[in-house]
């Protein structure tokens, strides 16, 4: 198969997996997913000669960069503005104690959000994209050992954050029986 044909096959096979990857990182802004995914495959098309035999982790790597480009310059300031603007909502969320009022796993997300961006990504790739260490290394653009080390550390830090916010969550679990 030519590079073009390999690209088309990878596109058909992985379009939705890449969409999910992007959607998971856009915090519910689903209307932007399509645009970012289009950019991911445009970049992948330009670099189609580099497409590895197992393309998905590599596509995740491309997607990670596209997302960073899409949100960083404009987005980081934007997120801060959003956060500033949503103070009242955020405060409200902290005092709400009813599990029904929160989306499932909201507190896990909260624990995750307290970690560095790098830690978050290695954890998401493992838990949500279900990558093994070898694929993780491809997606992160590092060696297998480094990937493994990063995952190990990130897990430890996530555990610590979960333990830190556990008092509230433990009581919720009890109330559920």
């Amino acid at each position: 198969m030519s590079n073009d044909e390999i690209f088309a096959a990878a596109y058909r096979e992985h379009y939705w997996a890449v969409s999910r990857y992007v959607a998971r990182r856009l915090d519910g802004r689903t209307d932007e997913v399509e645009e970012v995914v289009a950019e991911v495959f445009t970049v992948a098309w330009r670099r189609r000669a580099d497409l590895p035999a197992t393309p998905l982790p590599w596509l995740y790597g491309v997607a990670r960069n596209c997302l960073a480009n899409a949100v960083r310059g404009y987005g980081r300031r934007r997120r801060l503005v959003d956060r500033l603007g949503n103070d009242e909502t955020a405060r409200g969320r902290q005092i709400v104690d009813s599990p029904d009022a929160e989306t499932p796993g909201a507190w896990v997300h909260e624990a995750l959000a307290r970690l560095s961006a790098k830690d978050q990504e290695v954890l998401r790739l493992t838990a949500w994209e279900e990558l093994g260490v070898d694929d993780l290394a491809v997606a992160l653009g590092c060696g297998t050992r480094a990937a493994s080390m990063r995952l190990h550390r990130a897990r430890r830090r996530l555990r610590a954050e979960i333990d830190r916010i556990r008092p509230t969550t433990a009581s919720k679990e009890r109330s559920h029986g």
Partner: protein
Amino acid sequence: MADELELLRRANPVPVDGPHFGDGPLDHHAERQLNRLMGQRTSRRPRLAWGLAATAVVAAIVSALLFTGQTTAPALAAPRPLVVRADSTSVPLKTLAERAQAVDGVPGLRRGTHVQSWSLGMSDDKPPITLPEERVVRWNADGSHSELVVATDPRHPGRPVLSGDGELVDDGQVLSRQTYPPSWSDAPPQSPPPSEPARLRAYLREATYTRTELNTGELLDAVEVLLDHWTLGDRQSAALARVLADAEGLRPVGQVTDRLGRRGQAYVYDRSGTRTMLIMDPATGAVLGLETTFTRAESEYGVKAGDVMSYSAWMR
């Protein structure tokens, strides 16, 4: 209690078997994009590409700064916020919009932009730094366009400025020079902005991928997107002034001299934690600049109340 990865797995916001983005055949949009890619064979881009390419320059600069590992104290003083002249009178936006309406329709709309900007690069673990740069985007008759980004701070001509790698470079150093192949996009903000207020309002909504009516904060963000793509003619400027005049919460505060030395009328809009100042030409109603400052300290980001978060001054 389950282990941390298991907990995280259960909190997957978009699971494979969820209602959206599940595996299956491509939808119409995805199929069309594949056809476009396969059909072009040369390096044409989809409509988002050049907008992203433009932000990529800034993103590259910011990321370089964030990940250089230096404990960079700001090498240059961050710009001070614009000061409203104490003795000046403020002109209501509606008056300015009426003035803009009366301006003759010359000069006309031009694709591309010329903007001087100062933007704060913020990091979780390093002090913020301000990057001053000038960007010129010019479109050619064949649909291609070029973008030139130069490190410069017009307030200090000839003095070195902070650049992409977090180091000082000579004033005027080219940070990037790129030419992009023809683009065929016809969606906002690549399509020409209309000169009728209601249609312009819809255009701005589409340009920022917003489905509902824009609030004033979103509108000001959309203005930035628009002016980063187009140099407005008097008719579009008049329409924009009208749209802005209809927005809630923009208060006239008086006259300022912007960082390029131009006199303008200032209107401020307060959000929680930030204030955006819109600067408009008092004679023509054209938007000259937008400045966003912090109104309270954000220690996590190392910023103080009064720090300038971003500032763009557009030129012809």
